[in-house]
């Protein structure tokens, strides 16, 4: 399957400059940065190391060797509750599709990273705050089921504000669905890594994000169960700056590794190299010829 159009476009860096904006200001150090430089630097500020949020396809692009075979793209959201707040839910979805160039909060598919075939999921905060509705749950579940069938290692990049309110309990139940799929996948002896990016909270944090064999946190990412504001409201005091940061979690023993974005790919490759038996992979690939490696 060829690369989706959107990915090809990003890869070729053919975004019209007037669309992307020529300059961006770093919200951390205030430096004004040339947008193309930022993008070339994996959306990390070249001055202070601030991590801008990264588009799911950009992320995929920065990781995979060649083609990315997307699966689950045909799974699209409904409006099970007939939700309306300021706007009807379908309108919000439409606006997010427009804004994010994504069909939902996660992109899932198969790819090779440095020659390692993997199942890969990348969440994107720009679609409904990366919240998990039934589509995110279904795509994640499909990904793990597909990875289990093919005995591929699975990698998921998380970025989420939690369960998606607009789908009510149907969204929350995705925690149960995904947890079961991950458990089944791991119980068969397969290898799973999660990469927690900014922010990873709520129902995603409390399900597949923290079930992994190896948990990598992207530097400076905010990670936790309850949101920072909820905690501050509850305890009625300001939280220290480093609270719920990746670095804080490393000290508290919650994650295996913290890595800045430019080192995430190499970290993943090193871990795959340790955890995955190349001989097994090759035999799997022979058995599933339709899965072409670049």
């Amino acid at each position, binding site marked *: 399957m060829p690369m989706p159009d959107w990915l090809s476009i990003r890869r070729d860096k053919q975004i019209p400059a007037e669309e992307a904006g020529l300059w961006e200001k770093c919200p951390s150090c205030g430096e004004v940065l040339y947008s193309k430089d930022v993008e070339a630097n994996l959306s990390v500020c070249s001055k202070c190391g601030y991590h801008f949020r990264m588009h799911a396809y950009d992320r995929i692009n920065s990781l995979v060797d060649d083609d990315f075979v997307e699966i689950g793209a045909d799974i*699209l959201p409904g409006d099970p509750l007939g939700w309306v707040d300021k706007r009807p839910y379908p309108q919000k979805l439409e606006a997010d599709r427009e804004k994010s160039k994504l069909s939902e909060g996660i992109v899932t598919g198969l790819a090779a990273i440095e020659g390692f075939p993997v199942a890969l999921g990348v969440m994107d905060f720009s679609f409904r705050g990366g919240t998990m509705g039934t589509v995110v749950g279904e795509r994640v579940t499909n990904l793990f089921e597909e990875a289990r069938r093919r005995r591929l290692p699975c990698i998921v990049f998380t970025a989420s504000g939690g369960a998606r309110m607009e789908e009510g309990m149907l969204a*929350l139940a995705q925690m149960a*669905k995904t947890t079961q799929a991950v*458990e089944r996948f791991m119980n068969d002896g397969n290898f799973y890594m999660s990469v927690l990016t900014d922010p990873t909270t709520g129902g995603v944090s409390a399900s597949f994000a923290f079930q992994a064999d190896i948990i990598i946190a992207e530097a400076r990412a905010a990670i936790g169960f*309850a949101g920072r504001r909820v905690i501050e409201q509850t305890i009625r005091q300001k939280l220290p700056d480093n609270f719920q940061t990746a670095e804080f979690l490393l000290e508290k023993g919650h994650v295996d590794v913290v890595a800045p974005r430019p080192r995430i790919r190499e970290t993943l490759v090193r871990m795959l190299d340790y955890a995955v038996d190349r001989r097994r992979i090759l035999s799997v690939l022979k058995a599933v010829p339709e899965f072409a490696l670049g």
Partner: protein
Amino acid sequence: MNLIVEREKSFEGLEQRIQELRSRGGADAGAQIQRLESSYEELRREIFGNLTPWERVNMARHPRRPLANDYIALFDQFDELHGDRHFRDDPALVAGFSKLRGRRLMLIAQQKGRDVKENIRRNFGMVSPEGYRKASRLMTLASRLRLPIVTLVDTPGADPGIGSEERAQSEAIAGCLTALSKAGVPVVATIIGEGGSGGALALALADWVIMPQHSIYSVASPEGCASILWGDASRAAEAAERLCLTSNDLERFGIVDEVIAEPLGGAHRDTPAFTATVIEEIDAALRRLEVQSPEQLRERRYEKYRRIGSWQEDARRGIASAAT
């Protein structure tokens, strides 16, 4: 201020008057009592017969609503087990061996307090990582010993304190969900009061989920939802309308397998009878499930949650519509 408690106050005069007339007796009292009682009944039916979602939220939080210990008292026996083996025993999560109609089982419950003092001790039913780790330890033990797992869910949500974050609340909840995924024994969950978000689901990944009529089970608290949507927690009633957190909604969505009708005015109007009915249904569910093999149980539980969602045909046609 609980909405239902306020309503109940409006009946108090009427109830007292009926009582007085009854005790006084006399020739004309009979007719008067009948009249008053009939208007009393009418009023109650009018007020309680068709509760709004927000009224149900208040019912689920009613200070006299049956709590976990009211249900636990009806099991043949209960021996509490403590601790996560690492850090602390969490009083918000009560768990232990139990028996129901002679059947050995593992009982795991969120316990709110009845008064301020007990609520402080029980952290208002908000479970800390230690509580979830105690739960997953005992779920795993139950599975090892082939004991069915019965859970009673009643929490505003998982504890959102600093300590809980420091000790990896997310990991603890994911651990419970994983333990329930692995369990090769029947799992029956009952949402006895408030089913608050992931902190509730952690105990409710079950083969059979029972929900009393006026309990709530929600992706977010109405207050939290309102504050996110409109930056105004006081619009919780509106949020409650939208969240589909009532038993009827959830049965329709396949989140809940069985709804148990409550007495007019709520479960607390007749706690002994109501809790007994719930126990009856838990027993019936266990009876149906215990004939299945561990593999069957796991497989069917997987498939049950596998199906939940609204993406299916609707979504593939790109049409927004409620799932069946």
